[in-house]
């Protein structure tokens, strides 16, 4: 299938990407060519075939190719080394000391 510019704009909105109007045609054509190529998958008969669950190694593959694996651990608080903590905080774009600032998700509708 092909993609219209309106559909592309919608995808960009979903993906939180801004695309300038002048660039829409270029993105549409290049992404459209890939969608046309992957359309060949729809012609394959996959009735009764499970979706692959894991490509993990060893016995995790299972006998029929669609292996399953779950890995659990106890929910234990682990210490963070001070230098790691300092670098994590330093990476924040907006901060004052250890006060980390992010933008409001909800806006006050009364204003």
């Amino acid at each position, binding site marked *: 299938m092909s*993609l219209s510019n309106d559909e*592309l704009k919608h*995808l*960009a909105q*979903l*993906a*939180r*990407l*801004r*695309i300038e109007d002048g660039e829409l045609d270029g*993105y549409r054509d*290049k*992404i459209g*060519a*890939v*969608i046309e*190529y*992957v359309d*060949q*998958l*729809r012609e*394959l008969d*996959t009735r009764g*075939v*499970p*979706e*692959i669950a*894991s*490509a*993990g*190694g*060893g016995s*995790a*593959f299972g006998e*029929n*190719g*669609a292996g399953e*694996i779950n*890995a659990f*651990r106890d929910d234990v608080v682990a210490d963070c*080394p001070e*230098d*790691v903590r300092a*670098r*994590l905080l*330093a*990476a*924040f*774009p*907006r901060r004052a000391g250890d006060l980390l600032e*992010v*933008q*409001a*998700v909800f*806006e006050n509708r009364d204003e």
Partner: protein
Amino acid sequence: MSVDLNNLTVAGAAKRLADGSVTSEELVKASLAAIEEKNPKLNAFVSTYERALDDARAADARRAGGGEVGPLHGVPVAVKDNILVAGERVSAGSRILENYVGAYDAAVVVRLKAAGAILVGRTNMDEFAMGSSTETSHYGATRNPWDAERVPGGSSGGSAAAVAAGLVPAALGSDTGGSIRQPASLCGVVGLKPTYGRVSRYGLIAMASSLDQIGPLARTVEDAALLLAAIQGADPKDATTVSSPDAFVPALETEGVKGLRVGLPREFFVEGMDERVKDLVTDAVRVLERGGAEIREVSLPHAPSALAAYYVNMPAEASSNLGRFDGMRYGLSMPGARLEETYGRTREEGFGPEVKRRILLGTFVLSAGYADAYYRQAMKVRTLIKRDFDEAFKEVDVLAGPTSPSVAWKLGEKFDDPLTMYLSDIYTISANLAGVPALSLPCGFADGLPVGLQLHARPLDEASLFRAGMFYQAKTDWHARVAEM
């Protein structure tokens, strides 16, 4: 004393360090000098680490003091720019992470350091590993040491070029659809994508998490095995890692390939391949045959659908993984009046066009109304591809074929045609979809440009890849050729 890095292997360096005929300081100085001399032309390194020489001197002191040393003690190694090193910049080839500093060491870095390796710098890559030519990097394209007008392949093109040009004896890369093996092939070095789950990705900047693996690029199969032995193993911080009992680096004296069953998937020898590549790969298979390997034709019936399945599966996961780059917690932040505006501006300015295309494509295949037809169907096809390998490995131990359908192409040649670029990965994709290990090693030259032989093996059976690869390298000297720059 001067050190010629051009012919120096990891094993050779380790041996000379152990017998005292060279120091780590000398090796690291030689590496840094080679980078200073050749990198302006190649752009294989984004930057070197300032502390490398101090680390080398500390390694020498430790050895001199009789301290315990690891198998890579004092050997210079480079890492791809998507692997975190604490306190060092790591950018994934992207503007959005231009000033980002790694908060902690990736699991592979912890293990390399524990083995004694000296990290000399970070290598260039396609932005977020999205590319097959290392041209989408925000830090400029890397060039192929065999012909500077040509691409090194990608996305680990910086690591491949660095090893091929003798800047370091080995480097780490990451492989989601061929990003270690394809540049290894195009640059004439060895590249290994380990079994999915063999190596921890903790501290790897994720692209497509069900496909990503970290692996080595080196001059010899033996070196790749040494590197893998150092970085592999279960890690509680990556739940996909499997505990593997076998420490499996083969002995130096290869046991040969007598009785090894080698399959040639007929789907890997079809139209569209450069005839010269086909001939050289066929010659390489004959070398294994003369060594006593049994050659037979096999089939991977769904291999022709692998690339299409990949270009649904990979962008779906990449679009999710890259959602974290929102201008809030790290990286570039372009504040707008409202949150949505901040997201949009940050991602518009921070990501390059190929990354945006894959995010949009991934959003499409996951979106309401299309997810069943594209994403879920691709995951079923992936099961079929995995089953093909299971069936083939009932008959043979190793699968042999080309790594790339062509030799290195000219810079810019495929840059504006993503689909043609994607087709260059047609033989490497399947291993990622099926989770099996695969190795590329040099098997000749076409008009002066390297060609790679690709071998696949059963999950966790890298040992068979090393067995066949070491035998081949004992009988040939393609891997010993040096790119004249």
